[in-house]
């Protein structure tokens, strides 16, 4: 009896535990069915398009928590409220999911059942996949119908949101993933007066700062995207130039094992070997890298333009001494040193189902939440805009944001690797960069590994 009981217990334990891990993978479908059911009831209530008496309902989904007042989300919500006042015939129903991972899980589930919202936020890399599955609608038609609107966007704003020559989303801001925030006082103490313009000077600067007992570059790469998105995307372009990346993106013969790309990996490893980064770079995250910088233990850190707000909120003596720069030129590099990785990254896309029947209404809402008035409102908060704004009130913009805007106006954007590459390739690259930085793998080996994954998912 005891033995039987034991046997029963064991089997039950094994079964339940082993299966619980699988539950995570399977639950997606249940959720899909549920939301599909919820959506179809909603669809029944939606009035038929064209009946003028009933207002058109536009569903809008975003990943901005309602209780968090961030610059962009506040401006979008203000623009929507204004829009509602002037357009009684259109009702925008917003659904906000504050957690990014949960948001994208929901979006992918909705996409799998072709129930994407009429307007929703989407990353460029996800968009390419949705476009391939014909879950999102190309927006060229409505953009071309209003040329002044389309022309208003800054050049290259649509690059991240275009797939096979068609535009699938309109951008609401431009961001750079690579900005070097440095403490000019620490640099001056180490005998560096101006931020270096060449790679050799850059390395000399690293040595000088290190000699002072200060970490030259704070890096928090635990979550693995920082080294790739904020450093390699720009460093790689310095060596390879944009043509190589276009070749990779469009499958036109470029390889990760090409010598130029390997050189960029080698340059990154060289920094690691020279002790340019803190020793615990692979176990702290990008918030903790800023902590190192704020404590004066590091001379600089590399992160996107989104960190401007955090730096301004940091200790006064650090924030006041902070300047912005980008990586210097490299010897024999094919890229333009006056550039940084960046772009729109995300935009407002439209589900193919809603777009088909409510085109005009979708266009009106899109214009309201990404067009001139909205852009002016975020420009006044110091956010980089995707829409050309010339005349705005600069009084409330933080000094660092002004410095950044000045620098950005002279620079070009180059592609952010993780906005374009297949997520599986990015995953391989990101994990490999951790090893590269602590020299447990050579640049050649890493290049081969990324190339193998690239060929597998091509």
């Amino acid at each position, binding site marked *: 009896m*005891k033995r039987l009981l*034991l046997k029963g*217990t*064991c089997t039950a*334990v*094994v*079964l*339940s*535990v*082993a*299966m*619980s*891990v*699988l*539950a*995570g*993978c*399977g*639950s*997606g*479908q*249940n959720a899909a069915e549920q939301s599909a059911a919820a959506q179809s009831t909603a669809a029944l209530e939606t009035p038929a398009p064209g009946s003028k008496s009933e207002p058109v309902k536009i569903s809008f989904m975003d990943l901005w928590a309602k209780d968090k007042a961030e610059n962009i989300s506040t401006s979008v919500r203000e623009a929507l409220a204004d829009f509602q006042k002037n357009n009684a015939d259109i009702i925008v129903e917003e659904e906000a999911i504050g957690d990014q*991972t949960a948001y994208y*899980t929901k979006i*992918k589930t909705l*996409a*799998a059942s*072709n129930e994407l919202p009429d307007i929703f936020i989407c990353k460029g890399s996800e968009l390419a*996949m*949705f476009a*391939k*599955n*014909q*879950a999102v609608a190309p927006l060229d038609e409505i953009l071309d119908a209003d040329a002044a609107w389309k022309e208003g966007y800054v050049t290259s704003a649509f690059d991240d949101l275009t797939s096979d020559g068609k535009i699938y989303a309109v951008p609401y801001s431009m961001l750079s993933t690579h900005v070097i925030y440095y403490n000019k006082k620490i640099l001056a103490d180490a005998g560096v007066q101006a931020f270096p313009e060449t790679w050799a000077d850059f390395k000399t600067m690293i040595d000088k700062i290190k000699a002072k007992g200060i970490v030259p570059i704070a890096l928090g790469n*635990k*979550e*693995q995207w920082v080294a790739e998105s904020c450093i390699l995307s720009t460093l790689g372009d310095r060596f390879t130039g944009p043509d190589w990346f276009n070749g990779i993106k469009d499958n036109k013969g470029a390889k990760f094992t090409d010598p130029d790309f390997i050189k960029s990996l080698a340059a990154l490893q060289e920094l690691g070997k020279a002790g340019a980064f*803190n*020793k*615990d*770079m*692979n*176990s*702290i995250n990008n918030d903790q890298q800023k902590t*190192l910088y704020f404590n004066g*233990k590091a001379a600089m850190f590399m992160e996107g333009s989104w960190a401007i707000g955090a730096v301004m909120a940091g200790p006064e003596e650090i924030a006041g001494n902070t300047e912005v720069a980008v990586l210097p030129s490299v010897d024999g590099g094919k890229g333009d040193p006056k550039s940084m990785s960046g772009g729109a990254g995300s935009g407002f896309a439209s589900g193919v189902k809603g777009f088909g029947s409510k085109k005009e209404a979708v266009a009106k809402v899109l214009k309201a939440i990404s067009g001139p008035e909205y852009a002016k409102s975020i420009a006044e908060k110091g956010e980089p805009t995707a829409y050309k704004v010339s005349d705005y009130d600069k009084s409330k913009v933080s000094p660092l944001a002004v410095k950044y805007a000045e620098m950005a106006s002279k620079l070009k954007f180059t592609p952010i690797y993780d906005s374009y590459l297949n*997520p*599986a390739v*990015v*995953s391989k690259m990101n*994990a*490999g960069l*951790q*090893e590269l*930085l*602590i020299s*447990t*793998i050579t640049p050649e080996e890493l290049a081969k590994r990324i190339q193998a994954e690239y060929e597998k998912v091509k």
Partner: protein
Amino acid sequence: MNHANSLKIKNSTLLSLLAPGLAIYLFVIIVPLFTALGYSLTNWMGGLDKTFIGLENYAALVKDEIFWSSLRNNLLIVLLTVIIQMGLAFLLTVLFMSKAMKLKEVHRTVIFLPVVLSAVVVGFIWQMIYSNDYGLLNAILKSLGLENLISPWLDDPDQVIFSVTVPLIWQYLGVPLIIFMSAVQGIPKDIYEVCELDGVGGIKKAVFITFPLIYDTIKVAIMLSISSNMLVFSHIYVMTGGGPGTSSMVLAQYAYNTSFNSMQLGYGSSIAIGIFIISFGIIIIFKKLAEVKQE
């Protein structure tokens, strides 16, 4: 007779009482298992098209180096946990039995307390303990004058797997301890009394009386430990995320990364099924080995 009658329940009542539990089990565990099995035979990337590709995912899985290195990490964690955690728990059980130990309640509570903490919280706490600049561990080593022992605990690929195992052993030490202690309470007191009359000492008592008499319980505890450690995820996800590179990657995290970071849901499902098969195999092998020893 009356007593037996009062315990008799109609089959229909029994079924309706079981139904809610069974339904949850069915939809949370059984159904997902079969859907995962279905997904593992496709190349699903999270989009609309799901193409049936037969056993291709499994063919790739067999050749997947990261899968096997993750399995090796899992096995290492299982081995370390079984040896150290079970050993410590048994030692503590013996200590708790001895009359010399004072404040038993306090000790038991302190040891069991971490078990009820969330794995994520424990992960964060240990991440802080290991922290290079502000960590408790390095601070203690420094104050003891052992600076040469300070190392990047979570950044050295050769030792990271040991660093992430320590919190696991510490957190769940209370589970086998409580199981062992309740088993020990089931051993008749007169056996020990006879031993004491015969002049058997503490260590002999533990090895020749306590151990054989709670052997079945130890087996269950080890099995629980194997199955939970084959699926360990949250601690490592929080502490290192599987890094540096993939040196602290475990199977559950690899399945998660593949499914939700790389969006290869089909392949991710095949990893999950792989974990299921391997865990099942290990448990069966362990049961066979443990049984032979008993007879």
